[in-house]
């Protein structure tokens, strides 16, 4: 991309006493992106967001937004608005006044304020609640007001701190799509902080997975999910089977790994070179594993076919999760879609069933750390 990044972060660091919340981070976010910072609590994602908003002062490094350095810019002068996790709606003001607050501070004239507030409330479908106070609203309505309030000044960047965290599951799913639609319509650059990997996958154009104040991986949802860069990312985004072993051969594109437990050979695709004898892990997503009662009709020496018994079984409705103990000794988690209806209560697999599990080498990833 030839265009300069819209948000340019270089060497950003923030420490609290002995604790380094954000550790020498570089980040480029493009105009119009819906960028998600994903990580567990204490990973530094919120601190990073607060530095973008200007609530935290970096110990080192720089932030540029649309070409302007933000170091000397206080929060009230930044072209950035934030939607707070708690929404932080002013309890003593009506919905209307909350939304108008930002425009009033900028000295926009009354008629203009009224017009823009009306439009904004229309957009988030809260026009009927203009006179209500925040405590008279439901969680979902408050979320909309908070969103309207943070968008009214047409910020260059909208920061959202766990925007859907306080909503229940069903509302959250619905709101995710509304948020994406809104972002698409306005073209504003969104930076979202979340700990919820599903939310991140749904919303993001790109995800940055954070841990210990650093980025573990930055990429599209598909990149992060299908080719995780580290064990941490593989584990954090979705569930994964991690099988430890030692590299026995590395042909171009294909790596053979002898598992530590049971010493069976597994094969995985890899673009990287791996030295024979180095310790690696093979990562396979549970849904990429095929489970059958009979041995798949392949050559007997085909790798990645394992025999085992079903040890645990969880029926989740649209799919079932099975934990299979292989003859080699390690346990593999497999999800199997329930494509047919089993109204008699019988499942295709039961406890202690003998099964064969298999996965193509292309479905597995070799991870070092």
């Amino acid at each position: 991309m030839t265009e300069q990044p819209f948000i340019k972060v270089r060497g950003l660091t923030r420490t609290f006493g002995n604790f380094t919340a954000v550790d020498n981070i570089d980040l480029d976010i493009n105009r119009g992106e819906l960028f998600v910072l994903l990580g567990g609590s204490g990973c530094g994602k919120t601190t990073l967001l607060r530095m973008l908003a200007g609530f935290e002062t970096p110990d080192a490094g720089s932030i540029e937004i649309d070409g302007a350095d933000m170091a000397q810019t206080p929060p009230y002068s930044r072209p950035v608005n934030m939607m707070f996790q708690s929404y932080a709606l002013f309890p003593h003001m009506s919905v209307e006044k909350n939304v108008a607050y930002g425009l009033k501070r900028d000295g926009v004239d009354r008629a203009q304020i009224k017009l823009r507030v009306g439009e904004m409330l229309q957009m988030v479908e809260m026009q009927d609640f203009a006179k209500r106070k925040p405590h008279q609203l439901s969680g979902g309505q408050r979320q909309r007001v908070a969103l309207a309030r943070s968008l009214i000044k047409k910020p260059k960047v909208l920061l959202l701190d766990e925007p859907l965290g306080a909503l229940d599951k069903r509302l959250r799913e619905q709101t995710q799509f509304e948020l994406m639609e809104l972002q698409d319509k306005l073209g504003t650059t969104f930076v979202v902080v979340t700990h919820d990997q599903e939310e991140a996958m749904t919303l993001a154009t790109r995800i940055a997975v954070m841990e210990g104040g650093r980025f573990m991986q930055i990429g599209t949802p598909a990149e992060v999910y299908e080719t995780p860069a580290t064990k941490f990312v593989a584990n954090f985004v979705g569930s994964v089977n991690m099988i430890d072993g030692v590299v026995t051969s590395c042909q171009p594109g294909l790596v053979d790994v002898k598992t530590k437990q049971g010493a069976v050979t597994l094969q995985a695709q890899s673009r990287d070179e791996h030295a024979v004898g180095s310790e690696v892990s093979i990562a396979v997503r549970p849904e990429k594993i095929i489970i059958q009662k009979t041995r798949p009709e392949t050559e007997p020496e085909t790798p990645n076919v394992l025999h085992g018994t079903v040890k645990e079984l969880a029926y989740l409705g649209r799919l079932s999760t099975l934990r299979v103990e292989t003859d080699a000794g390690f346990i593999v988690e497999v999800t199997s879609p329930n494509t047919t209806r089993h109204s008699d209560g019988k499942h295709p697999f039961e406890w202690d069933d003998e099964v064969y599990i298999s996965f193509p080498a292309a479905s597995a990833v070799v991870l070092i750390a």
Partner: protein
Amino acid sequence: MFVPFRALMQQHWKAIVVLIPFLWLLVFFLTPFFIVVKISVAESLIASPPFSRLLDWSNGWPPTIAINLENYAYLWEDSLYIKTYLSSLKIASISTLLCLLIGYPMAYAIVRTPGTGKFVLLLLVMLPFWTSFLLRVYAWMGLLADQGTINDILIWLGLVDKPVRLLYSHFAVYVGIVYTYLPFMILPLYAIMERLDHSLNEAAADLGAKPVSAFFTVTLPLTMPGILAGCLLVFIPATGEFVIPDLLGGGNVLMIGKILSSEFNANHDWPVASAVAVALLLVLMVPMLFYHRIQSMDVNR
């Protein structure tokens, strides 16, 4: 016996819980108040007790009721009383304002102090209550007197060559009232600021409010209940304050508490003293009702 009591508690516990303070007020506030009202409409006598009876039984049944409103008329006619009421209200108002101006930033600073420092500061605010109020006022006399500590220091520093008149002045009374009632301002403010969500201030800043603007549009309105409660807690007792103007104000400071005391003790005019007290209560009802009204508005919001 035990079971009916329990059943009674279960059915009527709300009424019982309300009844106890209600009875307390009836016995220890309302009854004495009616006695004071009764005395205030009596005539002053040189007798024991030194006032006439409300019901005169000397002519047998029915008793004659003797209500004498002259004491109130006297309060109205003698300009001293109205002047003193106004002076009391003025001193109480200015003291309340001073308490607010000092107490508000103090409460804010305490709330924002991290860790255990907060509780140490809060303890320091309440510490004066551990010694006698009278003793503390006497201590101020020692500090403010012509030969007192403050004048000694001023002379030693060479700032003045003879003692400055500090004691027995309005200044001394303000110092005394502000010093005494400051905790009553700080504590309700602290309580409300403690509950204030700091992210509201951040939201205001984020939306373009400079610190001063954020204070006036967010912090101040949200701490208003604490300001009102604190002002009331200072203003009401300060208006009727007797010890501070008596000990620190000398003869120069007119306050209604002092008048009341001298009517009662020096003049032995119980009816006028009672009328002064009843009138004071009526004067103080105004801010109380105002506060109550605002509070019920708050609830309805």
